């Protein structure tokens, strides 16, 4: 079933590769360049999943996660964050902020879809 997925990353190539994979998998993708930019999508519309980077200018991923969790409409929306193997501390911080899970970079499309299938159907 088509899902509305918000992808937040300051890197255009990552946004595109994630977006391309998700669109090919039949989803609707909304992209944003940072946390602040992403917030415009959280205006009451249905959002099924958020995939966000952690390191971003303006508003980073952790703040974005907290911000989303503070909204009644999006309290329970699954949020995946992109991370690398070297970021253990950030991972816990993101989890504590309310993230549902994570995707380790670098990833192949199958891995991305696998992670997504864990949190949204």
């Amino acid at each position, binding site marked *: 079933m088509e899902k509305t997925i918000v992808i937040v990353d300051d*890197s255009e190539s*990552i946004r595109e590769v994630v977006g391309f994979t998700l669109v090919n998998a039949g989803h609707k993708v909304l992209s944003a360049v940072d946390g602040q930019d992403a917030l415009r999508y959280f205006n009451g519309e249905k959002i099924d999943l958020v995939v966000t980077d952690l390191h971003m200018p303006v508003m980073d991923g952790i703040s974005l996660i907290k911000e989303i969790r503070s909204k009644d409409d999006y309290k329970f929306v699954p949020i995946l964050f992109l991370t690398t193997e070297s970021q253990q501390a950030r991972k816990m911080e993101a989890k504590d902020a309310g993230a549902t899970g994570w995707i380790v970079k670098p990833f192949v499309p199958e891995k991305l879809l696998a992670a997504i299938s864990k949190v949204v159907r």
Partner: protein
Amino acid sequence: MEQFKKKFLEEANDLINSLEDSLLILEEKPSEKMIIEEVFRVMHSLKGGSSMFGFDKMDAFTHELETVYDLIRNDSLQVSREVLDATLAAVDHLKVLLENGEELSPAEQKNHQLLLSRIHHIISKGESEQNDAGKPNKASELPDNTDSVGITRVYEQVPTYYITVRPHPEIFRNGTNPILLVDELHTLGHCKAYLKKSALPKFDDLDPELCHLAWEVFLATDKTIDDIKDVFIFVEDVCTVIIQKIADVNMLSKSLFVSAIDTFMQSEQATDMKNLEEFIAKTLNSDSSKEDDTIAIRADEAGPIKRLTISNIRVSSDKLDDLMNLVSELVTTQASLSLFAENQNNPELMSIAENIEKISRQLRDNTFEICLIPIETIIIRFKRLVRDLSNELNKEIQFVAEGTETELDKSIIDGLSEPLMHIFRNAIDHGIESADDRLARGKPRQGKIVLKSYYSGTNVYIQIKDDGKGIDVEKIRQKAIARGFISADANLSYKELLNLVFLPGFSTAAKITEVSGRGVGLDVVVKKISDIRGDVEIESQLGVGTTITIKLPLTLSIIDGLLVKIDKTHFVLPLASVDKCFELPLEKIRNAFNNKVVLDGKQVPLVNLRNEFDIHENTPKVQQIIQVNHDEVKVGLSVDIVLGEYQAVLKPLGRMFKDLEIVSGATILGDGTIALVLDPARIINTFDRETLNRREKLYRDLGSNKQQLVTLKELIQ
């Protein structure tokens, strides 16, 4: 993947540029947390991207750099000259890596290794400082969850696990849907899950935000316990999962066992291991017929490709140029349509033509806007230039850029970087004095170069100001006399003397250094700037500094103009410089004293374009005077008829006409005739009385040769 790769390369280029920028700021403010974070973030993005798209060398390289800035971030390392030099060298190397892909020449390869060892050295320094502060290492890392989508065949001889999944009530709070995890267990092998809802409260007491459910799952799989644990990797903290191996064979293929647990689980009794073992023993003893089971393969058909919602797109500049050309063509064609419609006297056609005119105007404006890019994009290289050159020349120079958000047409920016580079070289090499000299003169030790850009009217101004030693006009005079540019007794104003530096072959630097003074003078700057229809001005005060101001048009190719006519010839005046239109009887113009007429109660010099273009037929009794304005100087231009607004696509006139002072180009009208586009700024410079006086004086000073009766500007072209 290829297309993403390409995108990544573009992006990496941008990242590296911004990195360079940040590093230079960091050099000024080594303890600025924000900048360190920024640098780290860029390194991180580069690393992520390069590993993602298979640039292994770059991946390894940026990984090390990231480590360095991670150490700095955590205060284990200080931002030092060594670190910055290494990083900047590394940035240069990254550019090489990007450009050549992963192919390196032997020399570059050597450099690669050299840089790596330099960075390692820095890292080891930082790490030794860090001591035993628990640094995350690979061993403690959570395994990442990946390969769970593959379909697992069920074998008879695979072990069976009994898994209890007890989500904590608040599991929903981080967006987890536990049923998906139970679902995922089904992908691992032969699986049977039972829902436990004994903890579910009465409907009235139910808090829908809390989870009251639990599952008990039997799973026969060839996967390891760790693989099963991986399913729950996201919920370790919000879900209790117990995995026990209950048999070495696939119990779920035994119908007796399955029916037994079916009944048992329905009863809602608490499951304990004792009961289970009993069932298993019973089943294994009876060893009933085996059933083959396969798991239905979930056909994940790829959905149709849908449009990606992207807030930004990247377009190659060629495409923009094409677009711009097409818009120009459209504007020209639209002019013919309007003219045609007017002649047809068909109201319907008229309204269509008007609509098209409106739309093409909007399209033109939008296209212009797309083609505008901020000056910032070329500033970085100047920052770098200032840093590198000042190091090389042993000078201390601070570079400040103001108004870098000012936008200019892409083609202008392209033409700008070379002359600006030249001006910068001059300022650094000849302008700013060495630190000792500066101190001796009572100036601050550090020199300063300010680049300031701003809008004014339809122009953009770029100023490069240094607080160096300034230009010695006396030297200029002597040099100009020596080179025969002016006669020994010439009486030139300060400004005129200064302007002599723009003449070809003029260079006052006593010694030729590596940096500037390669025989290329400021004349090249003027030439390049006038290629993009700009003007250059210089101001300087000996001992205080030099300011060079470049004035540029906002765009190059299409202008809003006022179409006018003299006899049978059309002319276009840029609307931006038109103040007002007046009517005057011919008599008044002919009798004008000192060529001045009174417009709005003020005396304004009048330029009779008829004289200028040598048109003497059919002079109407009443002349239209268009008052144009440039730099607060007003001039009236006399024409026969004012036809109205016109979008003019500027076409260059070609080399033959390059000496035409007051015409900046031509444009094609709707009926195919050509109109000359007049340049009010030049007209004013040419005909304004005061300017004229100054020029005449300069002629005399330049010598008696009549061939030399040209303006300074012509001299340099």
